[in-house]
């Protein structure tokens, strides 16, 4: 945050608006959870609202939008990459079937050529 009193007062006005937006976001999150929709859609809606609220906190309360340091951007960029990798890890894990015993769809079919031989 820059130093002049006028700037700080502008920031305070913004903080009040953000506080209102976060309160509305919380109410919307709860109301959206009562919607009769598929669980995948419910998860998507809830995470979108949470991401918007989180972005408001990071941008305005943590002043991330005002930071110009390349070192900070690099640090947070790397953090975001590894965080995404962590989030995708379960999906890769569950979609990996290498080494898992698998039954072929025709495994129980009668073996015709053996029947013909007898």
């Amino acid at each position: 945050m820059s130093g002049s009193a006028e700037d700080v007062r502008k920031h305070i006005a913004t903080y009040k608006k953000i506080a209102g937006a976060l309160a509305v976001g919380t109410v919307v999150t709860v109301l959206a959870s009562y919607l009769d929709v598929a669980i995948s859609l419910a998860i998507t809606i809830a995470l979108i609202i949470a991401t918007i609220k989180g972005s408001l906190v990071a941008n305005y309360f943590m002043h991330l939008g005002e930071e110009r340091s390349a070192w900070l951007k690099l640090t947070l960029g790397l953090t975001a990459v590894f965080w995404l990798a962590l989030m995708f890890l379960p999906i890769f894990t569950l979609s990996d079937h290498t080494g898992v015993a698998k039954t072929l769809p025709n495994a129980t079919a009668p073996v015709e050529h053996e029947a013909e031989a007898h």
Partner: protein
Amino acid sequence: MEIPYTVQARPDTGLNNVKLGIWLFLASEVMLFGGLFSAYVLLRMGAVEWPLGAEFLNIPIGTVNTAILIASSVTMVMAFASLKLGDFAKYKGYMLATVLLPVLFLCIKAYEYYEKVSHDHLPSHSTFLAIYWTMTALHGLHIVGGIVVNSYFWGPGSKMWHTKPAMFENRVEAAGLYWHFVDLVWIFLFPVLYLL
């Protein structure tokens, strides 16, 4: 010995060391909670059945706690802004609110935990409750840490304002960054555990 770059930005990083240090710490915290969120996704995707949070958890109580944490984030940023305006009395008031609001959060959380224990909803009961206890308890520990730090800056630590105001502002800003992060984690924890 004077420690350099506690107030002025370092020419190479463009940040003072206080801010760089707290951001590096927060990056490690993102990975800590990220690991647990990843575990949550893995457990949920791998489970044959997964309960709705409302089956075990009280949504109104969780909503009130969310509002309390958001309010404490607002008072924290207002405390910092008050310092920037040179209004120490307002700073003390806002900082006191920033200390007391999370105490209320913890009291409500303690009531929730008491309810869980009395209904035998312990971590051993189910995978859902295991991850619920783990994530909320870790978050609770972070709340306790924040209360301790913010109490110090409200009480004995605030004397620095009269001798080194710029350095004190930086310390409060760093404490604020940590506190907003704790709020941010709860913003994701609440829907993930209580609502889905």
